[in-house]
C-alpha cells in the first residue's frame, strides 16, 4: 500500500458538519490539495471521492501512482477525529461555595451541567426529581479534601439523600471527589469512582479533576458504544471510519501545542462548534491552558428556553426585524446549524459566533483567577480560529469578530484553520510527526486573516495620534481615530512595521507615546483598533446595529450570487 507520493485524507467529524481535506506530498513537501465540508449525517465516502476526483481532474500528477496509474483513493489513509456529544452531569455539594468550585471544573472540562444540588437550594424532592431526569451521565459529589465545619456538618445528610437517589437510579454512575469519598460506605461500589477535590483556586492549567472528567467522558462514550449520530446512521459497512476516531477537541489541543513549538510563539486558539467551544493557550514550552465549554457552543441548547441568551446573540447582529422573529431564527440555528448560511443567515451565524466567543472569554478569565500564569490577560503572538461557526463568514469579518470579543491590548497575528485540518493532525500520536506535518502545511492550512493592533486609551483631540505602516520600502501615514477600527491594506505574505504615535500616549499592555509593532499581512489586512476595552455596545438596538454595521462594512463585502 505504499505509494509515491503519499496522499491522505483528514476528516473532522463535528456535531453539525464534517470537514474533509486531501493532503499529498508535492516535491517532497506535504501540501493541502483540496478540502470541503458538508452537513453531518451525509455519507463521507462520496465527499472524499469528490475531493480526489477534483484534484485528479486538475492536477493528476499530484496524486499517488500505483502501477503507472493513480492509486485508488479508497486506499489512502485517513486521519480522523470526531467530536463527542457533551456528557451531562448532575452536581451536588454540601455548600454553595463548593458547588460553584465544582461547577467551574466540570463545565471547563466540556460537561453539560444538568442540575445542581445543595442543602441551600434543593430539598429532597427537587434533588430526587433532578436525579430522575433524562439524559444524565454522571452524578458528581464535590467536597474539599479537608472540609470546612459547615461542609462536614451538611455532608452526612446529603450523602444519605444521594445514596437513596442512586438506589432508585441504578443506571447512574457517581464520582465522589475529595472528602465525599468518606461517605462511600453502603454506596453501590461498582458505580462509584473516586476523584480529587475540585481546586479551590481556579486555573487554566491542567487540573487533575478536569483531566479525570475528560477521561470519564471518553469512557462513558466508549461504554455506550457511542459514536456521533451521523456515523451511526451511515450505511453499515460502507464507511471506512475506524471504530473509534480520536476525540476532536483533545486532538485540537495537541495540535496547538505542537504549533506553538513549531512557530516558537505564544498561541491562543479558539474552536467554536455546534456542541461546544474550546480555547487553548500554548507556548513553545507546552500547554498553558485549556478550556472546553458547552455554553460556548455556537448556539447553546439553553437558548431554546432563555430569551436573554438569544438576545445576547442578537446584540451582535446587524439584522433588523421583530425581536420575536429574530429569536426564533436564532433558535432554528440551534436546531439546524448548517442551514440558512447565505446572506443574512451568514451574518446571524457570525453574531452567534461572537456571542460564543464572549462566553468563552468570560469563562476563560474566570478560570484564570489566581492561577498565576497570567494567561487571560497576556496577548498572544498568534490567535487561531477554528470550527464550523466561522465556515461561511468572509475572512476579514472573522478577524473583526475575534478582535471584537477576545480583546487584549497589543499586537498579534490572526489566522483561520479554514479546512479544519489542525484537529486531525493533532490526533497523530507522535509529536515529531505532528511537527513535521505542521511545518510543511502551515501556509496551506492557516489562512492569514491579518494582524491586529489593539491600542486603547487614545484621547480625542485635534491630532490624537499618527499611524505609520512601513512595508517593502513603502510608508503609509494616517491619522489615528479614537474609538474606531481602521483597516490598512496589507496583503497576505507581506510584512511590515506599524508605528503608533499618540500625543497623550496609548495603552498596548503599557502606556507609551510611541510604539512600534511588527505585523504580517492577511485577507483582512491590518486592523488598528482604538475602541475601548472591554468593548461596550450602545443599549439602544438601532444605535448598536448602526455601529456594528459601520465597523463591519469595510470587512464584509457582499457578493452577488
Amino acid at each position, binding site marked *: 500500500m505504499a505509494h509515491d507520493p503519499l496522499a491522505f485524507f483528514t476528516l473532522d467529524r463535528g456535531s453539525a458538519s464534517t470537514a474533509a481535506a486531501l493532503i499529498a506530498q508535492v516535491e517532497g513537501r506535504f501540501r493541502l490539495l483540496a478540502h*470541503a465540508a*458538508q*452537513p453531518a*449525517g*451525509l*455519507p463521507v465516502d*462520496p*465527499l472524499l471521492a469528490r475531493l480526489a476526483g477534483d484534484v485528479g481532474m486538475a492536477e493528476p500528477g499530484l496524486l499517488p501512482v500505483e502501477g503507472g496509474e493513480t492509486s485508488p483513493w479508497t486506499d489512502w489513509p485517513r486521519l480522523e477525529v470526531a467530536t463527542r456529544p457533551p456528557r451531562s452531569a448532575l452536581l451536588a455539594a454540601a455548600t454553595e461555595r463548593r458547588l460553584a468550585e465544582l461547577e467551574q471544573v466540570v463545565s471547563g472540562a466540556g460537561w453539560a451541567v444538568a442540575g445542581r444540588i445543595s442543602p441551600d437550594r434543593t*430539598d*429532597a*424532592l427537587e434533588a*430526587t*426529581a433532578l436525579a*430522575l*431526569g*433524562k439524559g444524565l451521565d454522571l452524578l458528581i459529589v464535590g467536597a474539599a479534601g479537608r472540609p470546612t465545619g459547615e461542609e462536614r456538618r451538611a455532608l*452526612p*445528610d446529603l450523602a*444519605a*439523600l444521594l*445514596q*437513596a*437517589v442512586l*438506589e*432508585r*437510579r*441504578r*443506571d447512574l454512575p457517581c464520582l465522589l471527589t475529595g472528602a465525599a469519598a468518606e461517605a462511600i460506605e453502603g454506596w453501590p461500589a461498582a458505580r462509584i469512582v473516586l476523584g480529587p477535590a475540585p481546586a479551590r483556586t481556579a486555573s487554566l492549567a491542567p487540573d487533575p479533576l478536569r483531566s479525570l472528567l475528560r477521561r470519564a467522558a471518553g469512557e462513558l462514550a466508549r461504554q455506550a458504544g457511542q459514536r456521533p449520530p451521523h456515523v451511526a446512521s451511515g450505511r453499515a459497512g460502507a464507511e471506512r471510519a475506524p471504530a473509534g476516531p480520536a476525540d476532536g477537541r483533545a486532538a485540537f489541543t495537541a495540535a496547538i501545542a505542537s504549533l506553538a513549538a513549531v512557530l516558537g510563539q505564544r498561541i491562543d486558539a479558539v474552536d467554536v462548534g455546534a456542541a461546544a467551544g474550546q480555547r487553548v493557550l500554548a507556548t513553545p514550552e507546552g500547554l498553558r491552558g485549556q478550556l472546553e465549554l458547552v455554553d460556548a457552543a455556537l448556539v447553546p441548547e439553553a437558548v*431554546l*428556553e432563555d430569551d436573554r441568551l438569544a438576545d445576547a446573540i442578537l446584540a451582535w447582529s446587524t439584522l433588523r426585524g421583530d425581536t*420575536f*422573529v429574530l*429569536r*426564533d*431564527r436564532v*433558535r*432554528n440555528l440551534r*436546531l*439546524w446549524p*448548517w*442551514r*440558512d*448560511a*447565505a*446572506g443574512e*443567515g*451568514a*451574518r446571524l451565524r457570525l453574531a452567534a459566533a461572537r456571542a460564543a466567543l464572549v462566553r468563552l472569554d468570560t469563562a476563560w478569565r474566570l478560570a484564570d483567577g489566581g492561577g498565576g500564569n497570567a494567561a487571560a490577560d497576556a496577548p498572544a503572538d498568534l490567535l487561531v480560529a477554528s470550527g464550523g461557526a466561522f465556515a*461561511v*463568514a*468572509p*475572512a*476579514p*469579518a472573522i478577524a473583526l469578530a475575534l478582535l471584537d470579543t477576545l480583546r487584549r491590548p497589543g499586537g498579534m497575528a490572526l489566522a483561520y484553520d479554514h479546512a479544519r485540518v489542525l484537529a486531525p493532525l493533532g490526533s497523530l500520536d507522535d509529536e515529531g510527526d505532528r511537527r513535521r506535518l505542521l511545518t510543511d502545511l502551515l501556509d496551506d492550512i492557516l489562512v492569514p486573516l491579518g494582524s491586529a493592533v489593539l491600542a486603547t486609551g487614545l484621547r480625542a483631540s485635534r491630532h490624537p495620534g499618527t499611524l505609520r505602516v512601513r512595508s517593502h520600502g513603502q510608508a503609509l501615514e494616517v491619522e489615528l481615530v479614537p474609538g474606531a477600527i481602521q483597516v490598512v491594506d496589507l496583503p497576505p505574505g507581506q510584512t511590515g512595521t506599524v508605528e503608533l504615535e499618540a500625543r497623550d500616549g496609548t495603552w498596548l499592555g503599557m502606556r507609551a507615546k510611541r510604539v512600534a509593532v511588527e505585523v504580517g499581512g492577511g485577507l483582512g489586512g491590518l486592523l488598528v483598533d482604538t475602541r475601548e476595552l472591554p468593548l461596550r455596545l450602545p443599549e439602544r438596538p438601532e444605535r448598536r446595529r448602526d455601529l456594528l454595521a459601520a465597523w463591519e462594512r469595510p470587512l*464584509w*463585502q*457582499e*457578493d*452577488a*450570487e
Partner: protein
Amino acid sequence: MSGMIVRAAGERALRELVLPRPGLVREPLLHFPLGPADRPLVQRGQLVTPGSPLFERIPDAAVAELELHAGEEPPAPGTLVDESTPLRIAAGRSLRFEGHGRVLYATPAHRLRAAIGRHPQTVSSPVAGTVELVSPAAVSVRASGLGLPGTLAAGQPAEGRLAIAAPGPDGELAGSSIDVASAGAILVAGARVDLEVLGRARAMGVRGVIVGGLASRDLRGFLASEARQRAAMHGGSPFALLVLDGYGRRPIPLAIWQNLAALEGAPVAISIEPPLLVLSADAAWARPSSGRVRIAAGDLLGREGTFLGPAAGLRGAAGVEQPAGRVLLDALEDETSGTERTLPLADLERLA
C-alpha cells in the same frame, strides 16, 4: 434506458448531497417520565391500549417526614406510600403518611422523608403497545404503530381523531374554526398557531394540535399554561402540541399534509418524548416520489420540487462558496410551469 440512468445518477447524487427529512418510524418507543412521587400502574411486558392507565401522577407532591426510632430499618428509597396502607418499620410498628407517594430517604438523624401528595391523577396510554420498561424514572411503551417525527412537542401525551383544521399546509388555524365539534380531535393546524388559539382549542376539548411551526413566545406561553393546568387539582384532559418543523411560521411539508388529509378521522396520538405523531400500524402513508426535495430555509422556505443535480457552488459573502444544487420548483397556482433554481444544498431536505 439513458433516462433511467440519468434518474438513478440524480437519485444517487441526491442521497449523497442532501440530508433526508426524518421519515416514519416503525413501532416507536415512547417515554413517560415519572416524578419522585409518581407510581407506575403497569408492569414490563404488559399490553396496553389507548386509555389504559400507565401511572399515577402526584402533581402536588411535597416532602413529608416521620420519625424513626433508633435501630429501625427504614423502607427502601422509592417504596410506595399510600395513606390507607401503613409502612411496616419493625415488628409491631408501622408508619402512615397522610397521602400518596414514595419514600425518598432516611436522614442520619432518623427522619424518614417521603414525597407525598393528596390528589393523584391517572395518566393513560395514548397508544396501543407493550410496556417495555418500568423504572423509577420513566415508563416506556413500544407503540404498535408508526411514528411521524416532529421537532418538538409540549403538553401531555394525548390521543384523538385526526382532523384537518387549516385551509392548507401553509395556512393558519383560526380560532373561529374551532367549536364543540372539535372536541376529542387532534387538529392539523397548518404553518402556525398562536397561543390564543391553543387556549381556545383546549377549552373546546381538543386533544392536540399538529403544526408546522410555532413562535417560541407562544411555546413559552403554552408551557406556562400547561404548568398551571398540571398544578390544578383536576388537571383536565391531556392536551398535546406537536411542532413538525421548527420555530416561527413554517409550512407543513406537502407530502405530509396530503397523507394526514387522507387519514382524516383516523385515531392518532401525540407523543411528547420523543416528539411524534403516532399512527396506527395499518395507516396508509404514500411515499413521495424519488428526487423530491423541500426547501427548509431561506426565502423559499416550504417550497418543494425535484432535484435535478449538483450545480457549481453559490458564492456568498465575500466569495465564500456554498455547495449548491439545481431544483425544479413545483409550479405555484399562478404559474404554468415550475421554475429551475440553484439553491444551497444545506437548505434542502430530501423527502425520503
